């Protein structure tokens, strides 16, 4: 593999990895928000 091909491969892997990190990171954030809402609801119910 020449240097250009290696760089092309690395940039492609970086693009796919970053995309998935952003999407899954956002999904995790939504999950935490969801849990926080449920916790608040339980606390209000207990009051």
């Amino acid at each position: 593999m020449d240097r250009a091909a290696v760089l092309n491969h690395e940039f492609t892997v970086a693009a796919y990895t970053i995309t998935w990190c952003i999407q899954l990171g956002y999904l995790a954030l939504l999950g935490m928000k969801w849990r926080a809402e449920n916790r608040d609801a339980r606390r209000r119910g207990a009051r």
Partner: protein
Amino acid sequence: MKKSLFAAYAAVTVALMIWGFYQAIYVAPEEQTMHEVQRIFYYHVPSAMVAFLFFAISLVGSIGFLASRRNHPNRAQMFDAWALSGAEVGVVFCTVVLITGPLWGRRAWGIWWTWDARLTTTLILWLIYVSYLLLRRFAAGPQVQTLAAVLGIFGALDVPIVYMSNRWWRTQHPAPVFGGGPDSGIKDPVMLAAFGWNVLAWLAWGILILSIRYYVERRHQLYAEVEAQEALLAGD
């Protein structure tokens, strides 16, 4: 029933994502001039398409909120939840576009960024919607939703400008893949299929996270309303 439907949809979405990835990396042939780095296109373009769609949902939600906020407050809250969800998920996809684009550009053009019309208008679009989210997050008071709705409508006006930018002006950004004249379009049927599968997969994924975001926001609105009523009763 609702839970099992949601789980089935999520399972189909994950299967589509895996299939789309397989098509983009292993099935689609390597492009002759850009070689492997062209595969970024299979994530970059569908992300842009989904971002535009969700900004359009935010636009409809914002208009609906402004139209119904006086006479139908419950409906207005529903519209507001769609506006916020569309803007937030749209920003996530637009962020992907603004990161994968320069990664491709560095290899194809030799530069990370250039201030051409397509790139600049996309960055402005992203900044407008980030400011929308900051307004929603940090401002307080009864007018926040109205101000955000107005900002959301102005932000959406940038979407057709972004779309038309490489038709109206000469840009460094490649010519439109679709609808850009007789030479546009993907000629290789295998590449076209890989592109189509990835559009479908990212659209399904986008709808999945949009629906979760909408659900979380509606619950938040419900609890905020209950809390406000409790505060009013405690005040009496």
